[in-house]
């Protein structure tokens, strides 16, 4: 069953009401996006497929907790974020900080939308090659902003961090990128 014109939230409501088939539309819409996110964040294409499957299973299981008056995409990406973090921890390949001091203090809010489309695309191309060298803390917001095209507030809701911290991490991530690829 495919419901091409309805919003994610409307479809999620249908699934909540018992229409299991409607979940297929959400799968169609998010499978590629979540795979891209998981593979770029975990830097592991093999794991990403399993992770995406787990994300959909968790999303379906917990769908009744979704408030359909809010946006569906940050909700499912939040699940994906948790799954990816668990996978990274499990593999122990990369260090995940126990506590981030950036969460403590208020930061001046970096302006959102300063990048125009061309610049965004340019950074995205460069990022693709350098993501593996960037710490997970900065890598994830970069992926969410440049590849998944979320706004700061949505990234904050996915990562459960203040919007100003999103700005700081993106800024530092871009600075790291400049160090890795100085010509850009």
């Amino acid at each position, binding site marked *: 069953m495919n419901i091409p014109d309805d919003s994610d939230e409307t479809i999620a409501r249908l699934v909540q009401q018992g229409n*299991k088939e409607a979940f*297929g539309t959400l799968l169609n819409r998010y*499978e590629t996006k979540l795979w891209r996110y998981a593979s770029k964040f975990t830097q592991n294409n093999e794991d990403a497929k*399993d992770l995406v499957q787990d994300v959909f299973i968790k999303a379906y299981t917990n769908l*009744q907790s979704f408030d359909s008056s809010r946006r569906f995409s940050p909700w499912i990406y939040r699940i994906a974020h948790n799954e990816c973090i668990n996978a990274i921890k499990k593999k122990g390949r990369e260090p995940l900080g126990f506590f981030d001091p950036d969460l*403590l203090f*208020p*930061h001046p809010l970096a302006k959102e939308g300063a990048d125009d489309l061309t610049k965004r695309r340019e950074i995205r191309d460069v990022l693709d090659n350098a993501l593996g060298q960037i710490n997970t803390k900065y890598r994830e917001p970069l992926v969410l902003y440049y590849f998944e095209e979320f706004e700061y507030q949505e990234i904050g809701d996915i990562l459960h961090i203040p919007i100003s911290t999103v700005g700081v991490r993106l800024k530092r991530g871009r600075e790291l990128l400049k160090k890795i690829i100085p010509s850009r």
Partner: protein
Amino acid sequence: METPETIKTPAESTRHQVLEAINTGKVQMVPRWRFALSAGLLGTGAIIVSLTLLFVVSLIVFMLNESGAWLVPGFGPRGWYAFFVSLPWLLIVVSIIFLVLLEILVRRYAFAYRRPLLLSLAGITLFVSMSSFIFARTGLHHQLATFALGPHMPFPGYFYQEFHSGTLRNIHRGQIKTLTNRGFLLGVRQDELISVLVTNNTRLPAGAVFSAGDRVMVFGQPQGYEFEAFGVRKIGR
């Protein structure tokens, strides 16, 4: 319900596997009431922690208020030292633990995680402190303190008894019974009388006039039942 691991077949597509698991009932939706229940429990937990925190902080405020310990820093470095030594540190540690617990409980809500940790903690601290000042004035702690001096009372009773035993360092609260040539007789707990000497070195509020019946806080080191006051302040009630 089976775990995702048991339904994975690498050859099949994610979409097919997930839908099959859903359609065959291997994966089922958790009913809405379970989420409502867990949200309710979390909310109740947060309320209980908040009320406990409020009670503990208001108890600290009450103890400092009643003992007059608030006023001793006005007597200079010696006063500050006595103030820090007199603080109920155990209660302060308990309230910090509850504050952190409350922050952990509310952190999953957007109103908390959207703010920097320090702002969120400062907000909770400000709210709890203001509420505690109001709560401390309701008279509940006075009633509990009276009750604690009688038969046994659990956990908070210990603090009320400690407070009433007058262990605050060099801070004596009581009522002026009689004015004497050299100072006054201070009535402290259980009709005990202490002779307080007021000298030229004693720090008094500008224009202060003391009379019998005034409740005062006297700061000074006692030697037996007599001591020279380093400072005297009137306290409420």
